[in-house]
């Protein structure tokens, strides 16, 4: 395999990873703090959004169904631990593979739907899975699965004394998912994906098998989303359908990516870096203002963003003159 030349983007990436990996070495910064919790969630949500980013941006096909894959991953790990008394790792892999298979099963028929028909079909799929899981006793049904108290460590992937383990786990997930997306971007699949995104018929006329391309992208996307789900259940010691397989969770996948900048490598990270601290800190410290203030603010931000700059934060940066690698008419590729 030819090694390609490292671009500036890659150097920024490497620098960022180094910075994040070194953070726990600063005394008192990570530990068991709320700060660490927020960072972990930023990394997790950025990963989730990035996994969705792979399949976003197809003409008229916005999927609100990713919480299904997220949930399957969560249940995979959860059942391994709670129902079968194993470590979560085999369940995690099984869940991710299953999620990929389910994604293929669902997507193939749905790809012929367009626009709002497709979007609403994805709502319907999430709701069906949610309600079925609520009555399916084998996965715990409405009661969900609760973790017993397990010894800390990588084997069980739980920690209570400190958050450093979870932090590195989230960082690892982040590196994996962003890495996979970067790999897709710079290899053949990425070119095909972009071709299909920009014009499916044109791409097909050039010999691209758009169905195969979209399905492989979907499988990757589902697999990675499921891994995120597995992390989520380990972090929260519990899983039940409303926690993971809900429209609310699906909207998180969508919103963070779009607010950050859809179709762009950095978009998910920016979206998560702004929204997660906003969500967590406003809930933790603004309760005196009454119920739902954080969500009121959230709603206002979404509305403003869609009015002003639907390309998200990356769009704002673009307007401010940064070179973002986003295609602009008449500009050279970064």
């Amino acid at each position: 395999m030819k090694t390609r030349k490292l671009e500036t983007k890659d150097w920024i990436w490497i620098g960022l990873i180094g910075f994040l990996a070194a953070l726990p070495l600063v005394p008192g910064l990570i530990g068991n703090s709320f700060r660490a919790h927020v960072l972990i969630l930023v990394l997790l949500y950025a990963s989730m959004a990035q996994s969705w980013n792979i399949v976003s941006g197809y003409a008229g096909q916005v999927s609100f169904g990713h919480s299904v894959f997220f949930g399957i991953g969560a249940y995979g790990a959860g059942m391994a631990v709670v129902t079968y008394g194993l470590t979560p790792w085999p369940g995690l892999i099984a869940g991710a593979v299953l999620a990929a298979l389910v994604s293929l099963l669902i997507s193939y028929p749905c790809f012929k739907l367009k626009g709002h028909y497709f979007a609403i079909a994805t709502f319907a799929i999430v709701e069906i899975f949610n309600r079925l899981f609520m009555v399916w006793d084998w996965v715990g049904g409405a009661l969900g699965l609760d973790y017993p108290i397990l010894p800390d460590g990588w084997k069980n992937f739980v920690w209570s004394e400190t958050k450093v383990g979870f932090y590195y786990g989230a960082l690892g997930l982040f590196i994996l998912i962003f890495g996979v997306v970067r790999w897709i971007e710079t290899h053949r699949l990425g070119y095909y994906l972009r071709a299909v995104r920009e014009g499916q018929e044109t791409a097909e006329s050039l010999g691209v098998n758009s169905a195969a391309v979209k399905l492989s992208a979907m499988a990757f996307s589902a697999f990675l989303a499921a891994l995120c789900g597995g992390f989520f259940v380990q972090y929260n010691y519990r899983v039940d359908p409303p926690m993971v397989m809900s429209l609310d969770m699906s909207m998180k996948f969508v919103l963070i990516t779009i607010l950050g900048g859809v179709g762009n490598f950095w978009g998910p990270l920016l979206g998560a870096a702004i929204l997660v601290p906003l969500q967590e800190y406003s809930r933790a410290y603004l309760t005196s203002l009454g119920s739902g203030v954080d969500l009121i603010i959230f709603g206002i931000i979404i509305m403003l963003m869609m009015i002003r700059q639907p390309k998200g934060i990356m769009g704002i940066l673009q307007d401010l003159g940064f070179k973002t690698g986003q295609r602009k008419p008449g500009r050279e590729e970064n």
Partner: protein
Amino acid sequence: MSTLAQVLLDGLLAGMLYALVAAGLSLIWGVMDVINFAHGEFLMVAMYLSYWIGFLAHVDPLFSWVASGVFVFLLGVLTYRFLVSRCIGKAAMAPLLATFGLSMFLKNLCLNRFSPNFRILQSTLLEGKKILLGNIVIGMPQLVTGIFSLLLLFALYFLMKKTRLGWAIQATAMDREAAELMGINTDRIYLLVFGLGGACVGIAGGLLTSYLAVHPEVGSLFGLIAFLIVALGGFGSIPGALAAAVIIGLVEALAGFYIAPVFKYVAVFAIYLAVILVRPKGLFGW
């Protein structure tokens, strides 16, 4: 036998209610290809207004629906003017996400101001009354909303097909640029349509307070079902929305009784998928 008849009747009336709720959404979508994600919250706002009017001024929902309709008309107009018009055509799902933001805003604003308490009007004109046909019970609130639904849908249909305004709306829906060239102020049309769509769901909300409790989450499921209905009915088709609504009401009732109540909505969502995969543009969509 009478059980089946009761189930079918309940399903039919529920479907009529859903049609009333979904009519406005179908109109908006059919004309400007925008799904108002805040549709369920419009319903909730209408219900709150009707509740407060009923609770404070003792006006029955049977009359206060007018106020609800007008209020949500204005809400729709404002939503279009300040939100939707500024992101239509800009990016794929911008209006959808913008209205999602609006739905979060409205829901949590009501939560903050009105608390999550369930509130129900104690003695309304319709509540508790029923007509008995042998063994079959027809609830008065459901019957009245059913009648309203038919009247409203008929009025909408008449508006669209037989009036100049309706023709202007249809022209705008079919080809915005051509309509502009014909001298139609399409922005004004869009504004009006969004308002009308809001008014329809406002009327639905106003009537619902006759028998349903209002709380910040009350619109969620109704909104979701409305999305299903308009997509099932098909883009641009109000009769389609009615047909889809009735189908969904019946599926909900039949599945709820003959399979199990907990599968009610699974069946509804499944029916949507089943139909849409066979007819990707809904039943009557163009």
